[in-house]
């Protein structure tokens, strides 16, 4: 068994779902964000695409999840409902495909390790025949040589993308939730934009958004949005449920 290194959002999702047999909507998004951030921390080398793709998936999941968290989810119109269904189907199909190739990869590895017990003969003709050998460089020109050089030298180190702004995120959903519980009673009402304007990255904004969702789910804040895409007003409802531990808030059954 290799050490668990999650390659991307699908991988992590599969792992969380299959390991714990969890309801995607119960544990989920916060855990996935946190676990994914932890993985990003452990990667010393990250392609920016991975992070971007992750945000896309996270957004889809947040959308799916919030449709259940919000009390008026029954009033979704048919189009929105259908759209959610097709997103679900798409996600399911992709997860299945991902899982299929995981299993295929394991089988290939098995085959390779069986075949790897044997070593091929590569000695070639002995000296007696060497002067008969036609041009080894047949069909190879200077440009092919340059291409080979470039291949050999650029292939190895994967280009490093500066990811300081991604890996340096010091926050988790739990932490932000706790922070908001501490800050909001004094502030009263605050817009989501103001709350997040100092954040450097999209992932941090997602983390804040999830934290707000959790507080809303627990009845600790009221949220309202005047218009589509408008600023979300968050109001402390003053009913802190201090008997519930805040650790693992995301697993809380709402």
């Amino acid at each position, binding site marked *: 068994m290799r050490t668990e290194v999650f390659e991307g959002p699908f991988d992590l999702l599969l792992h969380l779902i299959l390991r714990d047999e969890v309801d995607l909507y119960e544990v989920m998004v916060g855990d996935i964000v946190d676990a994914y951030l932890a993985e990003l921390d452990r990667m010393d080398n990250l392609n920016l695409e991975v992070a971007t*793709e992750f945000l896309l998936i996270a957004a889809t999941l947040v959308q799916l999840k919030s449709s259940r968290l919000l009390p008026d989810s029954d009033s979704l119109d048919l189009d929105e409902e259908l759209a959610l269904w097709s997103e679900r189907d798409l996600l399911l199909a992709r997860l299945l495909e991902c*899982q299929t190739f*995981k299993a*295929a*990869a394991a089988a290939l590895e098995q085959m*390779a390790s*069986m075949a790897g017990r044997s070593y091929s003969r590569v000695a070639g003709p002995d000296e007696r025949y060497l002067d008969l050998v036609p041009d080894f460089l047949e069909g190879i020109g200077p440009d092919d040589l340059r291409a080979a050089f470039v291949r050999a030298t650029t292939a*190895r180190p994967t280009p490093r993308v500066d990811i300081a702004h991604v890996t340096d995120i010091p926050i988790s959903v739990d932490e932000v939730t706790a922070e908001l519980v501490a800050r909001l009673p004094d502030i009263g009402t605050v817009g989501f934009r103001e709350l997040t304007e100092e954040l450097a990255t999209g992932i941090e904004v997602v983390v804040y958004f999830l934290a707000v969702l959790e507080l809303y789910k627990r009845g600790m804040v009221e949220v309202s949005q005047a218009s589509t895409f408008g600023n979300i007003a968050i109001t402390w409802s003053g009913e802190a449920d201090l008997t519930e531990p805040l650790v693992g808030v995301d697993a809380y059954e709402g």
Partner: protein
Amino acid sequence: MRDENIEARQAVEAIVMVAEEPVPPGLMAQLIEIPTEQVEAICSQLAEEYRVQGRGFELVRVAGGYRYRSHPDTESYVKRFVVSGQSTRLSSAALETLAIVAYKQPLSRAQVSAIRGVNAEGAMRTLQQRGLVYEVGRDPGPGNARLFATTPSFLERLGLDAIDELPPLVDFVPGSEVIEALETSLMADRAKSA
């Protein structure tokens, strides 16, 4: 006739012995001037002889041709001998990417990325560098994306003669319990609000 067959047998053994890559039976047939079927028959006969005689090597058919390789039972000794330069294991990311290319070839990097859900550039580059995957052409459609396929050396690494010897992909589709788990978890929302 009998002498001729002995000569052909010897020629097959000699040619495969000096080759650096699997030798296609058709090529041997041309060089020895016998039908390809006879080459094939000689090769299976030889392979069987080596097996019966308990040789430390075997004659195998991989990647479309015949080649000598050490017998798997001798692994521990040969391993000590060839310690240097042996390829390291592939990461699970590279392996999954390789599986996708193997089953879906030819395909573009973007298609691989779409299936894996993460960018596959790095893994594809590793596989190309290891000589397991190579560029076979361009997509005739818009964009003319480069298309990739597995190399003969990939077949050899897996001990396969041809790509259609891979176990069918359908064998790896998750079992119903896994599908159910995924489905339940994705559909929970629906069930609860119903």
